[in-house]
C-alpha cells in the first residue's frame, strides 16, 4: 500500500516531538496538568476552521450523562494526519485523551482520539507541548 509523502511527514512529525510556541494561547484556555480520558457517544461534529470540534455524551458510573465539548486542530492539519470529515459520525462511541479547560467548563482540548472503528488518531493541535527551550528561543 502506498504511503503518501504527507503520511511520512506526519510520522516524522510524531518523531520530532512537536514544538509549541505560544500559538494562539493554548495556555490561556487549557491546563496541561489537568488530563482527561473520557469515552462517550458522539452527538455533534463541527468540521470547520480554525478548530474542528466534536461533542460526546459521557455517562458516569452513576449513569448520569454529561455532554462534553472537545476541540481538535484545524481540519487542514487533521486531514494531513489521516482524518476526514467523515471520520466521526453521530452515534459513534469514541474515546478522547486531552487537557481540560481552565475555566471549569466541560471542555477539553483533544490530544488523541480513538474512533468508532478502532483507529486511534492524533488530534493535531500544534500548540500544546510548550517546550521551554522554544519559549526561551522566542525571546
Amino acid at each position, binding site marked *: 500500500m502506498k504511503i503518501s*509523502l504527507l503520511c511520512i511527514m506526519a510520522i516524522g512529525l510524531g518523531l520530532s516531538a512537536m514544538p509549541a510556541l505560544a500559538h494562539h494561547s493554548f495556555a490561556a484556555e487549557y491546563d496541561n496538568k489537568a488530563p482527561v480520558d473520557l469515552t462517550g457517544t458522539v452527538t455533534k461534529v*463541527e468540521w470547520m476552521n480554525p478548530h474542528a470540534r466534536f461533542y460526546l455524551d459521557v455517562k458516569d458510573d452513576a449513569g448520569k450523562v454529561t455532554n462534553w465539548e472537545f476541540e481538535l486542530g484545524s481540519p487542514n492539519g487533521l486531514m494531513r494526519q489521516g482524518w476526514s470529515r467523515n471520520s466521526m459520525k453521530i452515534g459513534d462511541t469514541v474515546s478522547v485523551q486531552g487537557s481540560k479547560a481552565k475555566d471549569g467548563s466541560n471542555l477539553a482540548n483533544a490530544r488523541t482520539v480513538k474512533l468508532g472503528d478502532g483507529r*486511534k488518531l492524533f488530534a493535531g493541535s500544534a500548540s500544546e507541548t510548550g517546550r521551554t527551550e522554544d519559549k526561551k528561543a522566542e525571546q
Partner: protein
Amino acid sequence: MRWIAILTVWVCLAPVHARAQWLDYPTKGIPRTADGKANLSAPAPRLPDGKPDLSGLWLGDQWGPAGHRPNPLGNARPSPPEMLPWAQKVFDERRANSIKDDPEARCMPQGVPKASTLPYPFELINAPGKLVMLYEMYSLRREIFTDGRELPKEFINPSWMGYSIGKWEGDEFVVTTAGINEQVWNIDLAGHPHSDVLRVTERLHRVDFGHMDILVAIDDPKTYTKPWIMPMMRYTLLPDTDLLEFVCEKNIDPQHMVGK
C-alpha cells in the same frame, strides 16, 4: 512522542484519496529519485533569466518532518531585542496573560513576518513583476513587487499584510515590507509588539531543491532600541500536494480564555 509516530504509521495505511481533494497529487516536472520520490537534495532550480526559482509549497522546519534542523548560525541565538519601555510593558503583560488577546483568535490576519512562521504551508508563485505568496492559514496573500517600484516613506493606507518589494542580491531574494497597520498585534509567536514605522527585511535563499532559509530583520525605532534579527528559519518543500482552503469561520473560544 514516539508512540505518536507508531500510531500515525498505522493511520497512514488508510487510503489517502478518501480524505481531501488533491492532498496527494504529483507535481509535474520536479527532480525525482529512482523510487519516484521528489529529490529534495537536487540543485536549486533557476528561472529562464538565471535567477533562482523560489516557487513551491514551503513549511517551516519547526513544524515539519525533520523537527529542528541545525541552526546555520551555530547554536547561538540572537540576543533578545531591547524594547522601549512602552513595548516592554506590553510584551510582559501579554506573556503574563498567555497571549490570550491575540486577534488571531478572532480570525484576524497574523501580519508580516509572523504569517511565515505558522504551522501551515505557504506557496510562492512567480508572476511577471511580482512574487506571490499564498498563505494557507486564514487564506492570506502577499504580493512582493519586483517591477522596480520603491516603498513610499509614508503609507496612507496601512494594511494587515503590509506592502512589499523584492530585489535580488546575488542568489538571495531580499524583501522589504512596511506599511503594516497597528491592528497587527505581534510580529512573532512570542508576542513582540511593533509600531507604524516597522520595516521588515526578509532574505530568502533557496539552498537546494527542497530547502530554503529565511532570515528576518526587524527595524522599528519606536519599539526597539536597535534593529535586530530573528532566529533563522529553514523551510522544507512540500512536493506532490497543494494548499488547502482555510477560512477562519468561528472565533477561537474567547469566552473560555483565562488570563492571569
